């Protein structure tokens, strides 16, 4: 299927992300309260609300421009650990797609990989450290596999989202080695990492935004 994702999809994705983060604001706060400092939902909601405001004012010309708009807004509005990490992710994704008007599956995988690599470059987390990387790395792997077997971008994103959701769940039994939860040692066991959950929410929103197009 030669279908590609365009700027309208990217904007739909960001708007859908804002909606799903707002819906899950309290849930993310609760997850962070258990093993962090209780602000993750608030931080993400502040960032995506600002993205909505930005999008009301300016119309990005390409998917890459949309990603960079998101990157700059998250970087300057979210704060905490998640702000620079998600900001870097979107920035690297934007750079990866360049000024392409439409993204095919291969470009999408390149963007997701660059995003994940950006988070690792900033945060130095590995899979199993109980961070958002536990969602991102399986997501990137699943996306690459789906693209390799010829799936269209919507299906690639759906595969990434499902893998991210499973990855988020996989953080439950872990001890954290990065972020605030690492201070808790064994007391973090049994709690899901908030950043992994928000990552899965964002990827699922991307997949759903692509389905509409499909």
């Amino acid at each position: 299927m030669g279908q590609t994702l365009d700027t309208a999809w990217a904007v739909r994705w960001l708007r859908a992300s804002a909606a799903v983060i707002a819906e899950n604001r309290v849930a993310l706060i609760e997850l962070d309260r258990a093993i962090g400092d209780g602000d993750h939902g608030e931080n993400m909601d502040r960032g995506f609300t600002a993205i909505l405001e930005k999008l009301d004012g300016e119309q990005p010309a390409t998917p890459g421009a949309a990603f960079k708009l998101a990157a700059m807004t998250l970087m300057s509005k979210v704060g905490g650990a998640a702000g620079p990490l998600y900001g870097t992710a979107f920035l690297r994704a934007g750079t990866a797609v360049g000024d392409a008007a439409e993204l095919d599956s291969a470009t999408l995988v390149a963007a997701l990989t660059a995003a994940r690599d950006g988070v690792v470059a900033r945060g130095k987390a590995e899979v199993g450290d109980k961070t958002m990387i536990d969602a991102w790395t399986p997501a990137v792997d699943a996306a690459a596999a789906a693209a390799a077997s010829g799936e269209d971008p919507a299906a690639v994103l759906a595969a990434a989202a499902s893998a991210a959701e499973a990855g988020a769940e996989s953080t439950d039994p872990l001890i954290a080695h990065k972020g605030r939860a690492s201070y808790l040692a064994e007391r973090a066991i049994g709690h899901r990492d908030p950043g992994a959950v928000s990552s899965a929410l964002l990827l699922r929103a991307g997949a759903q935004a692509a389905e509409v197009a499909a």
Partner: protein
Amino acid sequence: MKKLINDPKTVVNESVEGFGRAHAGHVKVNPEPLYVTRKEAPSEGKVGLVSGGGSGHEPLHAGFVGFGMLDAAVPGAVFTSPTPDAIIPATIAANSGAGVVHIVKNYTGDVLNFETAAEMAEAEGVNVRTVLVNDDVAVEDSLYTAGRRGVAGTVLVEKIAGAAAERGDDLDAVAAIGNRVNENVRSMGVALSACTVPHAGVPSFELAEDEIEIGIGIHGEPGRHRIPMENADGITDRLLEPILADLAPAAGDKVLLFVNGMGGTPQSELYIVYRHAVAVLEAAGLVVERSLVGNYITALEMQGASISVLRLDDEMTELWDAPVNTPALRWGM
């Protein structure tokens, strides 16, 4: 949740606005992006000192902006590190050409945001050095964690590095003394109650009437151990033990003893902790040369305290004693 606030979303802005009004003789507030500088910043020829972090730790950091301490402070949302778009102009405002030292508490968020800001400020021609504070001995095995947190030792780093900058030390020297303070200070905290982040609306953790958390940070994070309530002397012993084990001072060493309140504990209780802490340090052969007791780095309305011990050398003592004139710490002028 009962708080003297209007709206969780405006807490930090309104509070810093009020702070700016009350201390108009000391500071200037830039509302958007939010940062606080000395009234007359930058100070000609002087290395600038900038710190910042999540709000909710008042008087840290804005309360320490003024002569002999910080040139600028960047308050983030409650318990959320500030973003580069505020740190960058604060850094530029603090720079007189002699460069700027960022004093950063070791949390992933603070580190990443200050790192980005430093990079971008360097790109704008400001020389930046970073002093990372990580004094919290509650975090064991720092190889397997995000590393020790920066807690109450930050106040001592800001005071002593601030005095060094004020006397005219150059950028590397100010950073070096800041790092030296950090290397010689250890802290550990206890919570008797949790705190409630305004936007969360519920306490950060639940403690039974007969339980306390040992080894808490300053963000209402749960600590490392939950133990049955003990008396003040027993708790003081528990806090000092890991501090002394890690600092490993020699008999005869001179120290500064800092008993810090978490915001909701009366001063009278801090002095009860201080009283026993002095006795323990003296029994260990140490000389308590300087002291600080009070609410200097807090976690909103949390009940609890932390103890910090700083091994002093003559230069640190001299810089500690040097005049300081900020809203929250003032002597000699």
